[in-house]
């Protein structure tokens, strides 16, 4: 379970999130939509601890992520503790961010071996199994730069899955891809949604995909949740005029 409690995020003088509260149930697939700049990326990056939380708390399965309340005071947790909680979360980036100095296989086994302490052989076998899932088993020894964008993104998905996260964050993972490569990546993600119970937070403009995989859609506007609904309702009968206009603009 993910719980945002009174979350405030400021960049200098700009307040991006101002007292945000929301909860995501275990196994739930939630899609975040909203105009550019409405704070969707910031929310995922806060969860991945890539941004400092200005105020408030984020809990993962009841465990505080970066800050906790101790004797009525809000204190930062130690990096080691943060790391332990963070391991439950995986993220796939818009720009893939694979390590170019490693082979596909090394990209995937690096963290299982050096963070989870898995034996090399076991990590390798697991990585190959996951590569099979994303349809790239035969490219295990290739280097990222030898792969197409769509293949790189599937490796990035495999790399996140190899940590066996409970939560997967997907930030516009097909936005940097040529249109003809989008389908394969979405297919892989649909398959993960179908065959696992990983909690997913998805930021995407692929509305059909959002409709197919998510249980709930949150519409953001200026860092606030303007409305939330099941995908069918949100995409067919949004409550707010603003949501309607936004959906019209992207469809």
């Amino acid at each position, binding site marked *: 379970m993910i719980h945002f409690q009174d979350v405030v995020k400021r960049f200098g003088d700009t307040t991006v999130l101002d007292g945000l509260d929301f909860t995501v149930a275990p196994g739930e697939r939630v899609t975040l939509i909203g105009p550019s700049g409405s704070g969707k990326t910031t929310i995922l990056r806060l969860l991945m601890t*890539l941004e400092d939380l200005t105020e408030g708390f984020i809990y993962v399965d009841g465990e505080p992520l970066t800050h906790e309340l101790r004797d009525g005071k809000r204190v930062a947790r130690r990096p080691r503790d943060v790391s332990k909680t963070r391991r439950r979360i995986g993220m796939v980036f818009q720009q893939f961010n*694979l390590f170019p100095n490693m082979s596909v296989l090394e990209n995937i086994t*690096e*963290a299982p071996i050096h*963070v989870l302490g898995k034996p090399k052989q076991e990590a390798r076998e697991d990585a190959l199994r996951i590569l099979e899932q994303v349809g790239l088993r035969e490219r295990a020894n290739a280097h990222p730069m030898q792969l197409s964008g769509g293949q790189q993104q599937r490796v990035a998905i495999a790399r*996140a899955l190899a*940590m066996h996260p409970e939560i997967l964050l997907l930030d516009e993972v097909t936005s940097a891809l040529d249109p003809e490569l989008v389908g394969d990546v979405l297919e892989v993600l649909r398959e993960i949604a179908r065959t696992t119970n990983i909690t997913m937070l998805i930021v995407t403009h692929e509305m059909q995909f959002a409709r197919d995989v998510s249980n709930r859609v949150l519409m953001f506007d200026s860092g606030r949740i303007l409305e939330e609904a099941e995908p069918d309702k949100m995409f067919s009968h949004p409550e707010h005029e603003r949501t309607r206009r936004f959906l019209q603009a992207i469809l």
Partner: protein
Amino acid sequence: MTWDTEFALSVFPELLSAFVRVTLLVTVVGSLMAAALGLVWAITQRSLGRRSLPLRWVLDFIRMTPIPVQLLFVYYTFNNLSALTVGILVFGIHYSTYMAESYRAGIESIRKGQWEAATALSLPPHRTWRAVILPQALRATLPSLGNWAIAMFKDTPFLIFIGVLEMVTVARQIGGSTFRYTETFTIAGLIFLAASYPTAILMRRLEKRLAY
């Protein structure tokens, strides 16, 4: 002036000895030291962020002070150290400040997404550096480190300030007393060439190993 092969051969052992015992020793040990220390400075600066300002000042100060001054200062301050040791220490530390800048540029050339992917995988700092950042940063940095080593090599005649005779100084002395500069400096040049050629090959090998 005619070329005297016999004379040229006769000065060879003395020049070679000065080259190996001083020039080569100071350059090789000094460069290794500078490369290691420079990396430490660069990583420390990056990890400490703004708190590394005092370290920056010290490094800037060392970089901007002339080598002869540093040689004399260290030589007379720590008079229990041999002149050669002082030479190695001063060259190593002086050039570590330049190499730190090279490493820094290499590290800064790594895109933010690489650090973020490492965080997203919860890689501990030592693994992020060793497995992700440095292999990529060193590729960009290596040629520049080689250039600083060559610069150090060319600065070794400064060792005369603390009474250490390296090859070029010895060659000048021989030339000055025999007036046979041509032979002496030809031999010195050949020794330099013989040393730099394998070094260049070694550097290329190293660069290849870092390629991906």
